């Protein structure tokens, strides 16, 4: 199993509008839209770079240290 990055994107599902901006900007191709309802990071691809959080118009994404 690949080593996970110490930081990762966390999506607030209630705030997410599933616009796909995060999918578009993610350099790792780590964001997916789940059934047209909310975005979700692919955990073993996400490096916590914050590009998605920076671009998200709904401010629904935060980068956090993995617990």
């Amino acid at each position, binding site marked *: 199993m690949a080593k996970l990055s110490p930081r990762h994107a966390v999506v607030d599902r209630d705030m997410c*509008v*599933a616009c*796909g901006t995060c*999918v578009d900007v993610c350099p790792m191709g780590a964001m997916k*839209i*789940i*059934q047209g*309802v909310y975005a979700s990071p692919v955990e073993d691809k996400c490096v916590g770079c914050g590009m998605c959080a920076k671009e998200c*118009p*709904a401010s629904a994404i935060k980068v956090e240290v993995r617990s």
Partner: protein
Amino acid sequence: MKQQRHWYHYLWIWSIIYFSLGFVNILFAWLGLISFCLPLIFAIGGGNKLFCNRYCDRGQFLRVMGSQVGLSMRREMPDWMKGKAFRYGFMAFFFAMFFNIIYTSYLVGSEIQNLQDVVTLLWTFQLPWNWTYTAGVSPWVAQFAFGLYSLMLTSEVIAIVAMLIYKPRSWCVFCPMGTLTQTICRAKASPES
């Protein structure tokens, strides 16, 4: 890592073409129905927001102008604009205006009302647009075109203002079609999602 570019990354050009065509001949405004039908087909048929995620010309146009050209001030959008009350309220208002266009077209088609060859911006400001209507079509066809073009132009102006002040794709937060298709997708989604 540079993302691979696909043909659909250039659909933002369609926004420019659409508004340019409507400037020349208002009947091209009917093409705006594509932006109403395709998201619904994806949402109802596929249970996804692929139109928003990949094919939305307006979303791409805002990204290009806001991010690549750098026109966006990238301020934080106020919480009330991201809230459900505003999103669903704006959706209800927007579709009420859309059905008003259909009703007005019906009145013109029934000869109860005369054709108004104006484009109304922000539901208030009437712009003279009488040079565009030249083809010999039924008046209701032209009336619907004027109405739809007004709605598309108004929403484009709101989207551009939101892009300039807030993040590039801020319009997507309260886009009526986006809100509607997300609601459809939520209703169709399996319970574990």
